[in-house]
């Protein structure tokens, strides 16, 4: 199979307006990847799937990555060919930012294998895939608000009272149950920290 650089050149010749660059993997695995601009991504995916020299008919792995340092979210697709038994070709798509412009084109119309995996990326990273047939949360429940796989995710304060808090648990208990306003009661110990304060 052609190298990642050759593949990029061939794709640039086929899709003249597209922005395609090679992301070099410095590690020993040397699995380099192609970073695509989102708008022509689905056309490129169809080309990769149907091109007779590539025939990347099998999308093995779809996953999200959070890059707070780059200020973007990323989706990575690992493509293989079952017909020609080669691969992987790795595609990466990046969102504009991590807050409001988090939309990327869904590749589920090209490879059905993306269906649940893109739902998972939507659920855990908050990337919105356009034209996904059934974009709902998959692992977290529907009412859940946040995206737990993001690097800056803070778990909710779901502290539950326990009779003998100690160490880190005690610290968390003090934060959770503010000190009692009654003068003379300095220590909001387990006896005064009623579980009834939690709704």
């Amino acid at each position, binding site marked *: 199979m052609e190298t990642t650089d050759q593949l990029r050149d061939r794709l640039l010749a086929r899709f003249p307006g597209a922005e395609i660059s090679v992301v070099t*993997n*410095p*590690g*020993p*695995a040397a*699995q380099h990847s192609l970073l695509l601009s989102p708008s022509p991504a689905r056309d490129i995916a169809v080309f990769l799937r149907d091109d007779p020299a590539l025939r990347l*008919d*099998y*999308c*093995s*792995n779809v*996953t999200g*990555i959070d890059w707070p340092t780059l200020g973007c979210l990323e989706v*990575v697709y*690992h493509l293989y060919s*079952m017909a020609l*038994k080669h691969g*992987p070709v*790795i595609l990466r798509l990046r969102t504009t930012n991590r807050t409001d412009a988090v939309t990327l084109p869904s590749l589920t119309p090209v*490879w*059905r*294998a993306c*269906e*649940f*995996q893109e739902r998972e990326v939507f659920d*855990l990273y908050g990337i919105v895939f356009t034209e996904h047939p059934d974009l709902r*949360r*998959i*692992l*977290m*429940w529907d009412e859940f608000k946040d995206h*737990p*796989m993001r690097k800056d995710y803070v778990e909710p304060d779901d502290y539950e009272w326990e009779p003998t808090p100690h160490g880190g648990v005690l610290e968390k208990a003090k934060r959770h149950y503010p000190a009692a306003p009654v003068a003379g009661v300095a220590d909001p110990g387990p006896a005064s920290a009623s579980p009834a304060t939690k709704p």
Partner: protein
Amino acid sequence: MIASGLQTTGAHVREVHDDFHGDLLEVSMGPHHPSTHGVFRMQVTLDGETIVKLKPVFGYLHRNHEKLGENTSYLGSMPYTDRLDYLNSMTNNWAYALAVEKLAGQPVPERAEYLRIILAELTRLLNHTCLAGFLLQDSGASGTPLMYAFREREKILDLFESLSGSRMMCNFQRFGGCRTDASPEWLAAAKKLTDGYGAFLDEYERLITGNEILMARTQGVGVLKPDLAISAGITGPMLRATGVDYDLRKVDAYGFYSRFAFRVPLGDHGDTYDRYMIRVLEMRESIEILQQAFRDLPAGPIMDPKAKLRGFRPKTGEAYGRIEGPKGEIGFYLISDGTPNPYRYRVRPPSLINLTVLEDLCLGHTVADAVIILGSIDIVLGEVDR
């Protein structure tokens, strides 16, 4: 059970309609249904007995395994991988070790590679035996086949226990080798089990394979077409039952599989019966592989002497490593930023992705068929929900 248009008056009596086929019934199968193999739920819409819509619901066993992996060291995730597909901890360990070794450029000694193949093929025997038992249980052959299967499974688990200290949570592979070496006594016991396994399969097949009821229940049920299987990323025995020749032991030839002579069984129809038969045939090939491995197992170290257990920090980079697990392609995608923890730790779960086509397979069939179709897909919820 939620019934649309169903009116109950105190007792659960259904009103008799003139247009008897007018109502669709929504049934929530699971998460506590015994046929769902754990906490899996299917939202099924029924027209009479026939399934017209089926939506799988996941997440009841979700513990964000991937976040745990990012918050612990590379080696610290090894015991967690046992808990993904808890029937096949040995292959999960291998897939993870393989991905990390790719990431770090870590070689593995020859004896360790052979041990990995032995344990992986024993795991395949174990998984497929369990599946054959569960599938028969799901199709209504209550008890007996499952107990036959579990009797054999327990013998393999005894071997795992004596080698790793634990029946199911083996935590056995390390980056650059294995944790403990197999003693000559262990190898003799494993060889004895392998030699006797063919007789067990003969016995089991005499009971089951030609059984008229099993054939009637499974043949032509849940037919999967090869094109859809490839597009939907189906892997493992379920893919090969449709006739697609794609076995990573041949394609990637990871470990030393290229040294072994074995065949890849392929199905013809892609129905539930083929999915059952593929597993039986794969078990026979696994026995072949095991016998070659016992014959050729070299002496030598089981850990690369330069491998680092403590303070393991792969260089910046990324790697995707995959192996042919008993349920399909299990892969790990890792990104290292040079710290002791992976920046990104991703599991490619074969069970979850094989469920993509569940609705396609079940449409037009009855609820009882959905149960055996799900059974033939072979899922473990520890891996589906992660």
